[in-house]
């Protein structure tokens, strides 16, 4: 009996806990809210912390307030899970009254969020999205345009500048990889190149051996995997003794993690980035320095590490500049207007939008090389002010 009463105790305390929490959640707020759907768990958990930091850095540049109103950034974890992400976006808009939504990284989760935001018209500032989501004067702003865009640029470079004639293609069986490679293949074939094989590997693939032993020979191997898969793939690729040059036929995901995990195996890999910390210009160097000073004490993010971090910084800047331009008017229409008229200067060059929310700006081709004994990226080509999609 006493045991049971003890259990009752536990039961009742748990219940009451819930009621306390349930009651304690109605707070009014005046500040301008920026909603950030990120990934702290799930397949992109690695990037999450960098993104939040990037936004923090950007907000700091405005002293945390615009037009006398505090800027409040609310981070929500979508766990790369479309259902959950939409839930979180819903919470940010309906409960926290967010006037802009940033993120998430995973197009699979970002797309449905755009779909949801369409109802209310709240601007959705993201990195990149598949074509169907962009409409004239829409609410979607992707400064890196469409995945197929970056893929296209890469395919063009491989065919024209590197002059490869045949290519074998392998990538994750997931929407954004699909888009990247569609673009790359389109460009490569337009330039007279020939695709000898295309392999799609399921997202739950653990062992790439079978695909590699089935891989056909060609001048070059175009690939794109999410970071965890890329590491396994590159390693196995080398194990199977392939000599074809590796080209990351889409946005660069190679980071220091790769250099640690794979060492010399990464040498010669070519990739594309619109904004990468490794780009060798004074502005970027200065920005990286600023980052390192701010987060020196947080060792896991002490270096911006990857292009996506910079992309997030740019997104935050875009949102904040828009709010600044409207002088604190956070109505969706005002913000959209401001974003369409924007020409933002970033360490990676100016960024602006076409009338359908697709970004315009510079693009850089990078290659992994050994620079005075240290493995890192070196810039091999730069494109000025290109529309970041397949025209």
């Amino acid at each position, binding site marked *: 009996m006493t045991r049971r009463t003890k259990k009752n105790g536990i039961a009742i305390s748990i219940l009451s806990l819930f009621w306390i929490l349930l009651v304690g959640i109605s707070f009014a707020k005046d500040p301008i809210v920026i909603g950030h759907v990120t990934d702290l768990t799930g397949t992109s958990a690695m990037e999450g912390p960098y993104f939040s930091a990037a936004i923090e850095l950007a907000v700091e540049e405005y002293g945390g307030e615009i037009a006398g109103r505090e800027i409040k950034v609310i981070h929500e974890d979508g766990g790369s899970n479309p259902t959950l992400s939409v839930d979180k976006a819903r919470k940010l808009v309906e409960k926290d009254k967010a006037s802009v939504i940033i993120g998430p990284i995973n197009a699979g989760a970002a797309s449905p969020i755009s779909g949801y935001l369409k109802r209310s018209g709240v601007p959705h500032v993201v990195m990149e999205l598949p074509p169907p989501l962009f409409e004239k004067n829409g609410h979607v702003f992707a400064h890196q345009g469409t995945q197929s865009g970056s893929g296209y640029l890469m395919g063009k470079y491989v065919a024209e500048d590197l002059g490869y004639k045949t290519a074998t293609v392998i990538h994750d069986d997931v929407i954004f990889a699909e888009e990247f490679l569609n673009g790359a293949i389109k460009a490569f074939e337009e330039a007279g190149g020939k695709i000898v094989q295309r392999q799609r590997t399921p997202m739950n693939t*653990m*062992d790439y*051996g079978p695909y590699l032993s089935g891989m056909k020979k060609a001048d070059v191997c175009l690939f794109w995997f999410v970071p*965890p898969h890329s*590491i*396994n793939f590159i390693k196995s690729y080398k194990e199977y003794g392939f000599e074809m040059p590796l080209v990351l036929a889409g946005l660069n995901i190679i980071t220091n993690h790769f250099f640690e995990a794979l060492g010399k195996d990464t040498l010669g890999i070519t990739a594309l980035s619109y904004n990468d910390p490794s780009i060798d210009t004074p502005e970027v160097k200065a920005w990286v320095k600023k980052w390192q000073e701010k987060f020196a004490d947080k060792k896991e993010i002490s270096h911006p590490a990857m292009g996506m971090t910079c992309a997030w910084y740019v997104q935050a800047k875009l949102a904040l500049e828009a709010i600044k331009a409207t002088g604190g008017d956070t109505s969706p229409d005002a913000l959209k207007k401001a974003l369409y008229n924007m020409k933002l200067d970033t360490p990676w060059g100016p960024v602006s939008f076409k009338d359908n929310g697709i970004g315009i700006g510079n693009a850089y081709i990078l290659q992994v090389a050994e620079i005075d004994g240290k493995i890192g990226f070196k810039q091999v080509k730069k494109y000025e002010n290109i529309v970041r999609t397949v025209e």
Partner: protein
Amino acid sequence: MVLFFINILNGISFGMILFLIAIGLSITLGVMGILNLAHGALFMIGGFVGYTLVTHGVNFWLAVLIGGVGAGLVGLIAERVFLSRLYKQFDNQVLLTLGLVYIIQNLSLWIYGGAAKSFSAPVYLKFAVAIGDYRFPAYRLTLIALGAVLLVILWLVIERTKLGSIVRAGMDDKEMAMGLGLNYPLTCSLVFAFGAFVCGLAGVLAAPIIGVVHSMPMEILLYAMIVVIVGGPGSVSGTFLAALVIGIVDSIGKAYFPDFAMFTIYIVFIGVLLIKPAGLMGKKALSG
């Protein structure tokens, strides 16, 4: 033809890993009737321990051993503290072990971050053997050999040692085994820990091929469970056979019908269930 042979080799090497993963699950299930859904998590623990050691310059094979021990210890604790109190309560076992999976996964995300960790096999194994005009990594060949050795050892343990005899007795009749006057609960803990240990070994051995990442436990578990059911729980030979079959089917599927790669093993799985519900080498019909 050579290509086909290469794919078979791929399948066998993957099958060996599957065998090492599944055998622990198979025995704990067959002997103790404990379904440990955290088995995949043990695999990951092994992997992370191995990663930590190797990146700090510990010898690869030593890391393999310690990784196994680490997983074994975690398994032992889980069995002593929790599972031993949930004897014959499947739903609670399931819930508990799932909970452990979530906790372990999130902990490893906390400690090691979301990036996939990977480390290389010993340098002297970092070359590819030429077969016809194809190349096959030496490390995978080593895995095949290792799997064979471990199979023999396991078989000897089960068939020749006292522990093994208790295990086999337990498989046939738990009460009878208890009646043998042996310390049955202790034996169970040991067997459980041993299964975890082997799983941990697999975790380190597989890392150079599949890497280690916080999101892997469930995928691993599924493979292991399919192998266990196809092979028939509690049967070493059955598990081994099933592991090879699944491994080979998996890589053949990936190489020849990539679009159905995800299904091939499930089709085999369901086929076996329909034809031989007890599993390839299963003694009794599966009703836990």
